[in-house]
């Protein structure tokens, strides 16, 4: 399965990519990212006056000689970021040519790989009617490769209930983190509430909105019955050029609304089509967005 998600060539390209978030992290785990707290690295950060209880070994004697006051030398602390990848595995994701779900899984794997490459921890969750851990706390490449198989085996089924499931994420309140949501957002569930919820818990968010070419540019005509893949719902429509035009206007409005919301909340947004290549998404849109370097 890992072979189908990634080929060797792309894996080598991923080696050189890393995820970037604009804010420093605050985590209990030591990792590869600068923390807002001062730590024990060799990288100088600042001075402060000595107060009783400080480690006297950190007193800067040169400064004492100059100012006759005890100053403590402070160094930057490096923390580990927990990147949570929320993969929408509702039935609607298993659709389109090329398949949205397949691209979504590849993206999830790519983001996880980049995360562990930055000495972060990565977790992948499948989100549909319930949330399930696909692979939790991946650290190191061996663990990643093992998790790829589990990721490939995740089925697409049921309806998408993003917000309800996100509330089930345990330990999300423990320190800063990153959440990467990969979904088509074709759900009545309130994705905005979900994002607000994650932001409340100081999560940095990347939203990958994925749609298939059929959804972006439907080709139906005449009297059709459109059956919802997620349930028993259907729509009887008389598809005319005007109907298609109205659909596209609805879609544009929908996507604009997502973009507007994300911009207001400082959420990175990647709006992609399932016929785009992984390289062009990450190296193109991801790079231009500044989340991948």
């Amino acid at each position, binding site marked *: 399965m890992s072979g189908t998600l990634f080929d060797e060539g792309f894996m080598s390209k991923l080696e050189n990519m890393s995820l970037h978030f604009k804010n420093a992290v605050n985590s209990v785990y030591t990792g590869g990212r600068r923390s807002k707290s001062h730590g024990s690295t060799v990288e100088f950060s600042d001075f402060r006056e000595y107060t009783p209880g400080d480690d006297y070994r950190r007193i800067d004697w040169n400064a004492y000689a100059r100012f006759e006051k005890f100053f403590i030398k402070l160094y930057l602390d490096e923390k580990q970021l927990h990147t949570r990848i929320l993969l929408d595995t509702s*039935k*609607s*994701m298993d*659709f*389109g040519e090329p398949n*949205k779900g397949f691209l979504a899984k590849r993206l999830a794997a790519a983001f996880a790989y980049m995360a562990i490459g930055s000495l972060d921890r990565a977790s992948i969750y499948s989100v549909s009617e319930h949330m399930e851990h696909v692979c939790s706390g991946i650290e190191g490449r061996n663990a990643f490769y093992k998790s790829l198989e589990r990721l490939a085996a995740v089925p697409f089924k049921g309806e998408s209930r993003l917000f309800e499931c996100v509330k089930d994420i345990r330990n999300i309140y423990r320190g800063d983190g990153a959440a990467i949501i990969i979904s*088509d957002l*074709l*759900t*009545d569930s309130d994705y905005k509430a979900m994002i607000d919820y994650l932001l409340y818990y100081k999560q940095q968010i990347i939203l990958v909105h994925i749609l*298939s070419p*059929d*959804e972006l540019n*439907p080709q*139906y005509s*005449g*009297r*059709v*019955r*459109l*059956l*919802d*893949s*997620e349930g028993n*719902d*259907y*729509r*009887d*429509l*008389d598809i*005319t050029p*005007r*109907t298609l035009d*109205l*659909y596209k*206007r*609805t*879609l544009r409005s*929908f996507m604009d609304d997502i973009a507007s919301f994300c911009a207001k909340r400082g959420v990175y947004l990647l709006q992609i089509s399932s016929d785009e290549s992984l390289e062009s998404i990450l190296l193109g849109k991801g790079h231009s967005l500044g989340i991948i370097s």
Partner: protein
Amino acid sequence: MSFINPWGLISFISIPILIVLYILKQQHSEHVVSSTYLWKKTEMFMQASTPWQKLRKNLLFFLQLLMLLFLSLAISRPVILSEALDEDFIVIIDTSASMRAEDVSPNRFEYSKKEILRLVNGLLPGQKMSLIEAGNTVTLLVSRSDNKQVLREALEKLECGYSDANIDGAYSLADSIIKESNTSKVILYSDKDYEDSGNLSIVNVAKSRENVAITQATAAYVDDSYTVMSTVVNYGSDKSVTLELYVDDRLVDAKTVLCEKEKPVHTYWRNISQEAGFVKIKITEKDVLPIDNEAYAVLSKNERQKILLVSEESYFIEKVLQAIGNFDIYKTTKDKAESQKGFDLYIYDGFVPSSFQNDGNVWVINPTRSFLGLSLGDLIKGSALDSVETFSGKALSTYIDAANIYLARFWAVTSHNDWEVAMKCGELPAIVTRTTESSQQFIALLFNISETNLPLLKEFPVLVQNMLTYTMPSLLDGDVKFVSGEHIEIRALPNAQKVEVTSPKNVKTTVAPPFPPRGYEATVPGLYHIRQEVRRGEDNIKVNEGYFTVSIPGNESALLSKGHSLDIGESTNQKVKGAIELWPYLLLLVIFIGMTEWWVYYRGNQL
């Protein structure tokens, strides 16, 4: 609302068929999509931008449903009955001459027929109509029939007359139908000013009375020539009219006269040749009733009739005949009487010849013996005369009161085979008549005129004139006028072989043989020609010709003459205006809905 063609309601079955077809047609091509989330939003957007869009496909269905509904209704031919026309009814149509007026198109009569035809077409199943023609005579054309074809044919055959209308008679007939059936409605189509009453509804078809009529045309023989007088009455607004005079169909003069409303205008033409047969007076201006714009006057032939008077004492008869004039009177004595021939009338007073000549009619006054089946008894004392309701009785007692005539004595008749009693004295005949198989007419006065008060009475010349009229064929003598529809008694001359009448439309009718001639019904106004072939001797056939005129009744020219009050049946104050058929309106609606449906469909495809 009722239906003329209830079987048409079967077509309503097409409505469920359409619904089934629509349900079957609702097949869609199915496509699985990832989510209908965006399509739902699109639908909402569509409804917001074109609110009726959601209904569009249903709208087409409903429009088609409405089309079928109205079409099925139209096939069923619904009618709205304006008040109680769902029962049997009687239609009376006035066929009088005034119904020929052309103030409505094409004329009042044809207009009425069209209206009645609409009623016939609007008849409901089982509903019955009776049709009565009110002309000179009343005819029940169709009695309580629901067969529209029969009613239509009766209407089609119906023609307008030239006489007046016997509306009362039509009412009596209608009344009897009402009493015998549950019919309670009578609709009269007329141009007279009757008023609605009881169950009667009047449809007055008259619109105008702009009519000028020649009401009279007469000719008098004065100083070896004829003077013709015409009377013109204008029933409309004041106007001048031109009168043309035709003598024997040749135009000889024209006069323009001013006719004030309802004031008779008399116009005279003098010095008309005595050789002429008839004159025609014509109004050149057109008006609503053309048939009274012509009138004829017959000029009597110069051939004077001959009367042989055999009398030694009848001074009174001779004087009266001379006073009446227009005869050549020959007198002779009893001994020479039997050899005299070639007279139109033989008068034997106080004398009965041994045999009668057969070339003329005969009066026998104060017979002295029995003759031709008339057996005389003794002379008895008489009293006042009394007229008898026989044909000759009516003819001889016209304009006289027989009770004024007293007889001192008269001959008591013991038997009078083949003789008809015209007047009697007490229980015995006083004046008798007889017509032989050869049309020879006899009048016998069974008393001596000098033994009566007749010479002192004004009735005397009238009685003699009546006797002359009875025995002299009046149709060939003088200005003879009849009114359309009048029954004309035609009397054949003694020894007449053939009597023929030619109408203004050049239709020849042989009224005799057989003799006596049957009556003639003259309807068409105009000049009639009468021709009698009379045998005079073994091989000598003499042809007697003459004219008579027929005109429409004077009140018909007035066009809006007032009808009298009519009452029929129980008063229910119901009005009948007729049935209104709805199918033309329904078809219009179907066409409109069809166009709307096409527009909706076309517009939907454009969107």
